[in-house]
């Protein structure tokens, strides 16, 4: 559900003027899609709601800097992803760090995610929630939001190898949980 371009421009202009009605309109039209982005990164619906709220605060604060270049959908989604990542980083100290001991550092990581094609988003979300935070965040960034391993390592302040391993673990975990055979 996206507003047409002219309507959207109007809403954005209203939001920049800090008009609550426009802000609500923008929220109503984008929240359902962006909430899914938040759900992917969150370990519960409540956490997803927090991320969504923080993300929209960022959207409203930074809307001035959106200059109409590129699709608005992409811009607002990237703000939401950033919100999710900063949420992950802000909860860092509650987490045990990734263990690398039993992993061979040179093990090949398959980046193929076509195996999930037959599944429904709902099923995947349910399994993602159960993943450890780091694995889930890495998997989301890599498989869905199109970050490279290098970028992820930089953003999350982790070693690139650790990121690769987290990704592989998440992928294997999901495949096992969703009943997909892998070689």
């Amino acid at each position: 559900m996206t507003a047409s371009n002219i309507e959207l421009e109007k809403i954005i202009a209203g939001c920049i003027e800090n008009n609550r009605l426009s802000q609500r309109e923008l929220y109503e039209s984008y929240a359902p899609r962006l909430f899914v982005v938040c759900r992917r990164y969150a370990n519960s619906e409540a956490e997803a709601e927090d991320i969504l709220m923080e993300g929209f605060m960022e959207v409203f604060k930074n809307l001035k800097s959106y200059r109409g270049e590129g699709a608005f959908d992409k811009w607002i989604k990237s703000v939401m992803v950033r919100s999710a990542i900063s949420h992950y980083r802000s909860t860092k100290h509650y987490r045990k760090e990734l263990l690398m001991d039993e992993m061979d550092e040179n093990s090949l990581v398959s980046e193929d995610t076509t195996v999930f094609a037959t599944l429904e988003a709902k099923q995947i979300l349910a399994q993602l929630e159960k993943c450890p935070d780091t694995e889930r965040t890495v998997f989301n960034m890599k498989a869905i939001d199109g970050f490279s391993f290098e970028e992820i390592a930089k953003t999350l302040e982790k070693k690139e190898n650790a990121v690769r391993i987290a990704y592989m673990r998440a992928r294997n975990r999901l495949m096992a949980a969703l009943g997909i055979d892998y070689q």
Partner: protein
Amino acid sequence: MKEIKDIFENYEQKPSDEVWNRLSARLDAEMPVAPKVVNRGLSSAWKWAAAVIATVVVAGVIALIALHNQGDRPQQQQETVMEQSTNNTEVVVPESEPATETVEEPLLAETHPTTEPITVKEKPVQEEVTTPQPQEPAAKNAKKQNVRQEVLPANSTLAKQLAADPVLKNLSDGSVDWSLPVHLSIPNLFTPNNDGVNDFFVIEGLEQYSSPKLVVRDKNNRVVYQSANYQNTWGGENCPDGVYHYEFTFFYNGIESQASGKVRIIRA
């Protein structure tokens, strides 16, 4: 070949309505719409008052020193000054305060070289300048103004505990931002007319406390709303315009505290 990201491409899920309520409360707090309806000047007014008290007490201390100087009784004098400064915890500013001004009594140091120079820490002057005056002209013009009750009420058990804490006591001079972590901001009116602004009875800071319980009574003392886990969702349903009395109970670190007061519902 279809990839995992395609699965999510067109998948949508509506978040609960609660999120917008929280978001709009955040917007009201951080990006208030002009004309300002939420008056958050109360806590700064408190700081302002503390600054005035501090200045008065400092003046008193200086006067006292001058008085005792004439009497030429060094021992007793020092004691009195120390007593004075410990009694008035309001004036004691932590050492780290950047803009503290040190007032030395040169006369005293000359007459009694053995006595330590007495220093009086004064509140930074800039605080008085930057803090808005408690009475804004706009406040007088507005008929019914939405004034939020900043709760760290004197009668709450939490406040009593804070007052008894020797570390926190010394900080009660206004140099501490009480807004964290023990802070609640309760409005005295809200307008449930579905215009998206101030439609709910929103207690800011609620999420910091466990088991936030709200009971609202009308003039006849009938309970019109109650919730054992209040989430800022009361929109005055089935309540005609008027004044209601609320009792808000919350737990902080296992201590029960209560805040109560009047709230007005205005729809027109």
